[in-house]
């Protein structure tokens, strides 16, 4: 059994801190809670290192002919081409998919990019709403929880953050710009600014233990007072206004419930990163630097077990980002609509997607560099690279250019190129849930889960 104690255990009396009894009570430290927490901790330790899940997004589909995307060869002996070439050093750690279709996105409200994005990790159609779409249609947000959040409710309960949502160059607050959903119509806003992410995630890491205990107790006390204010006011308001305040109060209660949760199995490699340099994070030319900063923060937050679930959204669905730093003057979405025979456009799209793959490879390499158990953190992680489109120019989503890296603690047998024939992506999402011990027979719209989880991933 590990000698490490979780911080809550220490706060509640084993750490030699002198704080007043009312504060201890305010922290939720009942007489038997230290034992209870320590016991829970021991159980976690016995099961080995924690599993993590990460999903990285890039947009507008892959190169239109797939020639520079799709591997060639057999399931276990395959060759990577231009776009996936950065994964060459990680070939044994990846699963490359062909023929996984986002079928559910062919129904429901919204345009092709709205649907592709909203269904991507939820496996459900969009709600009716006011975001403008094609053919005069409109769409709202997705109508269900996303796979990362479903996993987070299973494995994220003991960490400081149930999940963390990172983004780079993500503009607008629409269904195009959200990949992660806590529930139907509840998208989670990602953070573009590494400096803000740093403060949020690492701000109080390594602070004096006594100071942390006091902060937690004070926050609890203040939030209690605030919540009682919400209660007093709600009763005086009408239905819609009261519901608005109630949702706000629910957010506060959730924060309050995790005030005391901290790292339970911090890896020896855990250290507080340096504060990110001040950079204009929405400046297009800074994209590469900002992406690296975000990935470094993401990996360190996993290493320190501050969270076990993260998403990294690079730009947004349907974006017209200009990759000036790659020498490509054409806006991305416009470029994705050139015909299959436009070799110049294909070459540019290959270059853009190769650059995204480099970010993915850096994420993989960073996780690999953290020793854990007999292997690395990558072995205990599944790292999905997803896209809201398949073929950009006609919006075909019949073969999603997705890759999975890492074994999630043995749930996936990597090093393979898997060909399917139009298997709905809901079944892949369901396989992900199973890898984290979520018991479910379907995920998203059950109509697209016939046959259950994919059988050949383990």
């Amino acid at each position, binding site marked *: 059994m590990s000698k490490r104690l979780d911080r809550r255990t220490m706060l509640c009396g084993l750490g030699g801190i002198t704080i007043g009894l009312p504060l201890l009570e305010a922290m939720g430290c009942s007489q038997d809670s230290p034992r209870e927490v320590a016991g829970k901790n021991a159980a976690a330790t016995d099961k080995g290192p924690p599993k993590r899940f990460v999903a990285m997004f890039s947009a507008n589909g892959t190169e239109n002919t797939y020639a520079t995307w799709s591997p060639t060869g057999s399931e276990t002996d395959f060759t990577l081409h231009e776009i996936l070439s950065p994964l060459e050093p990680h070939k044994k750690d990846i699963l490359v998919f062909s023929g996984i279709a986002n079928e559910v996105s062919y129904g429901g409200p919204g345009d092709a990019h709205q649907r592709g994005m909203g269904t991507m990790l939820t496996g459900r159609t969009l709600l009716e709403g006011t975001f403008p779409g094609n053919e005069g249609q409109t769409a709202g947000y997705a109508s269900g929880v996303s796979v990362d959040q479903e996993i987070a409710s299973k494995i994220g309960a003991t960490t400081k953050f149930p999940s963390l949502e990172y983004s780079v160059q993500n503009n607008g607050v629409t269904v195009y710009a959200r990949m992660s959903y806590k529930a139907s119509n509840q998208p989670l806003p990602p953070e573009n600014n590494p400096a803000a992410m740093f403060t949020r995630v690492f701000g109080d890491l390594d602070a004096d233990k006594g100071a942390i205990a006091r902060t937690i107790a004070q926050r609890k006390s203040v*939030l209690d007072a605030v919540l009682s204010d919400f209660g007093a006011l709600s009763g005086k308001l009408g239905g819609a206004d009261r519901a608005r305040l109630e949702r706000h109060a629910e957010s506060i209660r959730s924060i309050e419930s995790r005030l005391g949760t901290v790292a339970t199995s911090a890896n020896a490699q855990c250290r507080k990163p340096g504060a990110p340099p001040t950079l204009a994070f929405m400046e297009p030319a800074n994209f590469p630097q900002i992406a690296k900063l975000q990935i470094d923060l993401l990996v360190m937050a996993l290493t320190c077990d501050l969270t076990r679930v993260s998403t990294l959204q690079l730009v947004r669905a349907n974006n017209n980002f200009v990759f000036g730093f790659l020498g490509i*003057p*054409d806006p991305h979405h416009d470029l994705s609509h*050139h015909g299959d025979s436009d070799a110049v456009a294909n070459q540019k799209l290959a270059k853009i997607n190769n650059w995204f793959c480099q970010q993915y490879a850096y994420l993989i390499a960073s996780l690999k560099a953290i020793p854990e158990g007999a292997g690395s953190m990558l072995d205990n992680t599944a790292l999905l690279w997803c896209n809201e489109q398949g073929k950009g120019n006609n919006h075909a989503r019949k073969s999603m250019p997705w890759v999975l890296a890492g074994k999630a603690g043995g749930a996936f047998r990597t090093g393979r190129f898997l060909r399917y024939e139009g298997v709905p992506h809901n079944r892949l999402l369901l396989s992900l849930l199973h890898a984290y011990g979520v018991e479910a027979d379907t995920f998203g719209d059950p109509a697209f889960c016939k046959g259950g989880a994919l059988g050949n991933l383990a």
Partner: protein
Amino acid sequence: MVAAAAIAAACQGGHIGENEKQNENEKQNEKQKPPGATQASVCTGEISPGPSPLRRLTNREYDNTVRDLLGDATAPGRAFAEAGEALGFDNNADILNVSELLAEQYMHAAETLAQNATADLPKLVGCDPNDDGCIRGFVQRFGTRAFRRPLAQGELDHLVAFNHENRAITDTRTAVQMTVQAMLQSPRFLYRVELGAPRAAPSDTWVPLSDWEMASRLSYLVWGSMPDDKLFAAAAAGALRTKEQVLAQAERMIKDPKARDMVVDFHDQWLHLAEIDTIDKNTTVYPDYRPEVRPLWRRETEEFVTRTVLDENGTLTTLLTANHTYLNAELAAFYGLSGPTGDTWTKVALDPARSAGFLTHAGHLAALSKPNQSSPVHRGKFIREQVLCQPLPPPPPNVDVTPPELDPKLTTRERFAEHSTNPMCKGCHHLMDPMGLGFEHYDGMGKWRNDEGGLAIDDSGRVEDADIADPAFRGAAALAAKLASSTQVQNCVTSQWFRYAFGRAETGADACSLQRLRDRFGATGGNVKALILAITQTDAFLVRPSGGKP
């Protein structure tokens, strides 16, 4: 919603079908209007305020409020999660939800603000903070400003007891910090709570606002911030109950420098000025382009609208057609103009044939361009949607939206010819390109060009499907003059201000409020300041619907 007006019917002949939903909405709105309503008769004498949803402070309002409440200009709200926008504005009550992330950001901001505020504890509290009586006075004084109304006895007792308890288990300074934190996270601070005035119940359908609520309505409209001492004093004296009293305060307030922030905020959103920040130009095509020019571009338009509206009593016509602008030396050099020196923004006269208010500002036109070329589509679409209030659907999913490649043998107009010949495109593009092509003398960086690489420019165009009798024009200045003479444009701008002022869509119940605004805007020759002041004289502003509690 009224916003989704009529465009489906106009966007026809191509791929866009009849939009049932929008038409239904429109019919609904028609139904809400009083029977037989015409422009002259929507005001029946019956008071009709329209809905009045609970409004959360926007991130900008949060920053302004803590600045005025605490003297803290650190603007933590700039890093808060964004709300997005609805109907073109980020202050729409519907979207101002509080996610867990934002609640966490409120908590951290409250902690930092409270820490800053208590750096000089005696100054903040004004007496001995170990004394409950002193704390009671502080909480009463500070709370009145934080909640923008006097605290009820119960609230006061509660906060004093909270401070007392915390003082016993922490220390004096921490206890004051926690008290401030609790107030800064309270819904009474973060929302503009309106319960109506208990003093009178003249109607089943509407109630007057309390004096304190009226003070906040005024301050958040004109300043995007909390009331100042004079406004609080007027509220305390019950001197915000007549239209005249409200107008007198608004007239005082609009002269305050804080009103400039409001004028900038409205135009930033209406004119999409934030898009200037992320412009990226192809330096092979535009070797003069430097990213450093972007903040100057944005500043030019912000200076122009603020000075026009607030300092020069300017009109909508001035905004659309002015033959002058405001430049500093660096931006003047970009335009090839002289006059301004250093960083002083100076009024500069422009060639009347080449200037049309904000419409021909370089940043505006550069944002409505592609990295390597102008974009008649985007320029026309902006006018259609933002100036004529006719929203357009995006292109269909199977269409190649890539602009035609640059071709030295063809002008932009020629390269985009398919939009006016192919019936699939024409149905919608006749609403955009013919206006956008009027700006062809401005290149993708918004600079005047006499020709397109030696090819003659044809900048003739048409304003289709609008209330403009003679739709043909030649050049941006002529187009601007036509827009300036249009009642539809004037009504559109009125609607934009209405949505911004009230944080919601206009409804059938607002017919009279809107009509009063249109009348006033028209009667003053389109004076924008007069329009803003007139907002405070509408039913929508002066009263609220009754029945807060179901």
